[in-house]
């Protein structure tokens, strides 16, 4: 909590100047307001007691117009100032978050939290606006404007000044008191409402289940009863909760009434002139206004703290160090890879790879198999440079991978994960990922090789159809073929695949198999395999278990042994 408020403060320093200008403008506006009230009181005084007409008041009326114009201009300028202060902070924070996100890298991105993270980067950052643009300036104004008014009122009428001094500080105090209590009450109330909303959502989500059990009709009565109970309990709480704001309202309104009556008597006793009296009456509500406005902006602070907590949490997550390697791999379309005694452990200390050595010749097809948690995915992550081995090394055509520039190495690699991502954009954008502005013929050719051209051309706008949000509207088979087209388009000498475990319909499956065969031909291929067919066609199968290579060889060789692989596929191989 404290480090969040600290962060908010520190972040605000970047916009200290425009914020100070906004406060200065607000104060100016407050001073002009006093002037305006003084002139207005003067006009009324002249007419009522000076018994004079237009000629006497018209200079005052004209000067009032000038004050109005100035105040409008100032109001506009201060709004814009505050906006720019907050907008620059939001841009900065969002840029910082984005940079951090990419610095964290793919291994640390937990896909399930994508929605929550995206909310932090969008709505979370937006929640800072009201804090910087409204709450902070209002904080300063809530002190400056009432003090200025007090400074004018007290010399004119010390009695009213006394009333203001006595009640003014009570308002922020009452607000803090109410704030604390109301916050607790509010939160309790909020939880209740959330629970009611959650119940309704629960019923909507479970409607199929209710209906299957013929229970859906009787649930309408439950919805009604719960809502009604909620209303009763809420009103019981609100009756008390509103009492505190009643006290606040009472304080402000009744002191104004008190001031009016007191001024009236002092005028009758000729203790006070009419102009001064009217001025005090005009200023009294303005004395309380900034204090009350502060209260309404208070929830902006709560929102900002809530959002700030999530932002600080994300920024505190440490990014792994980026190896600074500049070696460029000599151009070659034949790439061999060696893993030499590679060890890798998670941050938690859990050992995932325990001395793994694999030699992959150029254009060789390797199938990685093993139970879940055996370390297959980690091998792929290391090959892709998403993680670095704790010890041991990976050689690419004899060059140590950790000395090679990662971007340059990845130009040699195509990766098709188990659930390929379809990005928001056109089909063309998705195929040419990373190389915008590429030749359309090449894109078409890649789609053709992936057997994806037929379905792409049947889309409403062909290659210019916008797909995205995870490929909504495309079938699982189409998503995979699109990813395959992406791989063909990249045309890299190394192919890394994570074979899907769930099956597709017959036609998609046949097309996908044919496309994959074409893609891997003549290329160094590492596939995390789930299908018998795939392992049977591999040049070599590497069986991983508990972070170690336990077996390695062709399908035939491994079947001859009585290891994990034999136990696994023996039954099916026997049937074939």
């Amino acid at each position: 909590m404290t480090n969040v408020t600290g962060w908010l403060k520190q972040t605000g320093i970047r916009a200290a100047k425009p914020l100070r200008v906004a406060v200065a403008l607000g104060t100016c506006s407050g001073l002009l307001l006093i002037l305006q009230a003084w002139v207005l009181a003067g006009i009324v005084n002249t007419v009522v007691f000076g018994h004079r007409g237009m000629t006497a008041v018209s200079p005052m009326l004209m000067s009032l117009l000038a004050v109005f114009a100035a105040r409008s201009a100032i109001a506009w300028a201060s709004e814009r100032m505050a906006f720019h202060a907050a907008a620059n902070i939001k841009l900065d924070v969002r840029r910082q978050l984005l940079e951090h996100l990419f610095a964290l890298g793919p291994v640390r991105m937990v896909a399930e939290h994508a929605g929550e993270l995206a909310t932090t980067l969008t709505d979370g950052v937006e929640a800072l606006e009201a804090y910087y643009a409204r709450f902070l300036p209002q904080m300063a104004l809530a002190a400056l404007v009432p003090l200025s008014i007090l400074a004018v009122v007290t010399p004119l009428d010390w009695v009213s000044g006394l009333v203001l001094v006595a009640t003014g500080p009570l308002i922020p105090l009452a607000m803090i008191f109410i704030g604390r209590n109301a916050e607790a009450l509010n939160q309790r109330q909020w939880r209740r409402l959330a629970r009611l909303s959650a119940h309704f959502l629960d019923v909507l989500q479970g409607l199929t289940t209710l209906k299957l059990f013929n229970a859906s009709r009787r649930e309408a009565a439950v919805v009604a009863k719960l809502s009604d109970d909620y209303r009763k309990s809420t009103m019981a709480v609100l009756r008390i909760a509103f009492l505190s704001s009643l006290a606040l309202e009472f304080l402000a309104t009744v002191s104004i009434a008190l001031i009016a009556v007191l001024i009236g008597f002092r005028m009758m006793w000729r203790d006070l002139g009419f102009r001064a009296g009217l001025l005090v009456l005009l200023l009294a509500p303005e004395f309380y206004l900034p204090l009350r406005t502060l209260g309404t902006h208070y929830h902006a602070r709560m929102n900002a703290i809530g959002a700030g907590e999530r932002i600080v949490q994300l920024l505190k997550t440490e990014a792994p160090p980026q190896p600074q390697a500049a070696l460029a791999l000599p151009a070659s379309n034949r790439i061999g890879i060696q893993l030499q005694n590679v060890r890798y452990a998670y941050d938690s200390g859990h050992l995932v790879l325990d001395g793994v050595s694999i030699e992959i010749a150029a254009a060789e097809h390797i199938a990685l198999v093993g139970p879940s948690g055996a370390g297959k995915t980690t091998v792929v992550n290391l090959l892709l440079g998403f993680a670095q081995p704790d010890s041991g090394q990976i050689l690419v055509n004899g060059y140590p991978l950790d000395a090679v520039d990662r971007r340059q190495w990845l130009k040699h690699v195509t990766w098709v994960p188990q659930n390929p991502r379809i990005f928001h954009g056109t089909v063309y954008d998705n195929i040419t990922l990373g190389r915008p502005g590429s030749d359309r013929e090449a894109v078409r050719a890649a789609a053709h090789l992936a057997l994806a051209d037929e379905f792409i051309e049947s889309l409403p706008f062909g290659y210019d159809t916008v797909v995205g949000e995870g490929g909504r509207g495309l079938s699982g088979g189409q998503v995979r073929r699109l990813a395959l087209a992406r791989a063909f388009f990249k045309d890299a000498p190394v192919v890394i695949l994570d074979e899907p475990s769930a099956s597709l319909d017959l036609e998609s499956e046949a097309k996908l198999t044919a496309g994959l065969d074409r893609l891997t031909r003549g290329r160094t291929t590492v596939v995390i395999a789930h299908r018998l067919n795939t392992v049977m066609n591999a040049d070599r199968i590497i069986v991983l278990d508990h972070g170690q290579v336990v077996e390695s060889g062709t399908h035939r060789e491994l079947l001859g042994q009585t290891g994990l692989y034999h136990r696994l596929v023996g039954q099916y191989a026997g049937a074939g």
Partner: protein
Amino acid sequence: MSTFRRLIGLFLPYWRWIAFGILVSLVVVIANMALLGTAGWFLAAMAVAGAAGGTMNYLLPAAAIRAFAILRTGGRYLERLVTHEATLRCLSGLRVWFYERIEPLAPAGLEAYQGGDLLSRIGADIDALDNLYLRTLVPVTVAVLSTLMAFIFLSQYSLQVAVADLGFLALAGAALPLVARRLGSGPGARMVETSSQLRLAVVDAIQGMGELTVSGADRAQQKEAERLSHRLQKDQDRMSSITGSVSALSGLMVNLAVWSAALLGTVLVRHQHIAAVDLPMLVLVVMGSFESVAQLPQACQYLGHTLAAARRIFAVVDAPACITDPAQASPQPRDTRLELRGVGLRYSPSGPWVLTDIDLALAPGRRVAILGPSGAGKSSLISLLARFREYERGDIRLGGYPLRAYQAEDLRAMISVVPQHPHLFNTTVRANLLLAAPDADQGRIEAAARSARIHADIDALPEGYDSYVGEAGLKFSRGQIRRLAIARALLRDAPILILDEPTEGLDSATEREVMDSLMAASDNRTLLFITHRLAGLERMDEIVVMDRGRIIERGRHAELLNGNTRYRQMHAVLVFPPEPAAVH
């Protein structure tokens, strides 16, 4: 406009509360004007009396000032109570209204909203509807009425002052909000669009970071997100410029109204059309008359949001129901034999066929498995049998009568279904189970739980069967949810049991256990078992393999495995014994 009228119609039953709320709000606004006016007059009168060296009857006005102050504060309290009471009553009514509308449409009519956060958006939309009362109806009505009253009051003294005030009120309360809305609608829509694009770009970056990195597109994606962030700022900048100008202008309107009252008042006093002591009163009443219109720009905005929410809600409830119950009572089925002949289904009259030529015979006690990849039409078949959808071709008969002859609820009483995504309600384990059989005793509940291999898990909970499920209580694992759902289906003594991928998400040991219990439980029941997993199929009387809405193979396990079949092909996968997932 018809959306607005229809929405108003939903609020009509609560018109008494609504009117009461508006009345109290009006009193609060009027009390403020009266307080200011009286104070102004009192000051002037007292000063005049003082100047003349005399005195005046100050008791009545001084008392009036105090009374108005108290009326305002007390009224505000009452206003809050009444408007909240009215809001909560409306909210409760709207929920029940929506539920009663949506219930006959479910689940087919809600299918488009399943998954993701669409369903919760519906929930939020319903919550947004009661903004109509609190944020639009009350402020607009109060503004109109209080403006009218201020006009009448001022016109007693001077028609000119009243007309000038009315003019500035109309500018501040109607013209400016409308102009703001007009000017703001473009940037407003762009803001929504840009921020949703930004969100998409961030989600793409998070979920596709690996592929972006390998493709060398990571920096481009980061740049794209930053570009959108800048564009959002630009859109907001335009919006802030508009709202800033409007709020500065509406402040100016108040000032100009006061200014013209002072100007006109000066002339009127000079010509003795009004008494001098009335001038400060008129000026202050004009000032006070702007309190109620200050909320109108916001009301205008809320109205837009509320109507958009209402349009979405009406679109949901206006969907036609997929199934209509027959007028006659259900026939008495001869037995529990279920037969499908040449059944075809599609979701819309011109859409593609989801199911084609499905033939299936489920004699009492028979166990049939339906196997196929996702998209094969397995779950659509269940929705036909549960009477959630209408079949277009062929014939389905239960106990000798077509499915269409039965009342849907009577039909569902004979069929117990464990859906693919069983829902556990946010209440106790017991209440969740009792849904299937409201009058079952503890013995029956436990028996069903034992059969589904979940009794031991429940028993181990601190509060046993009275433990809460979900948000308010503990989280069950996916496997436990499946088994609870199976227990719930077993508790209902229906002759036909349909299970949609019941072992999905279970480890193989539990899978085997659940299969054992299912076999035992279906001893005297018909079992339709839908799956894409292969465990337990050797125990089925028939295995039906589906692909894209058609049956491509059928037979027993051994028959299908001996031959060049899709079934055999599906078995050619590597299945390792699962291990507990590693912790990152």
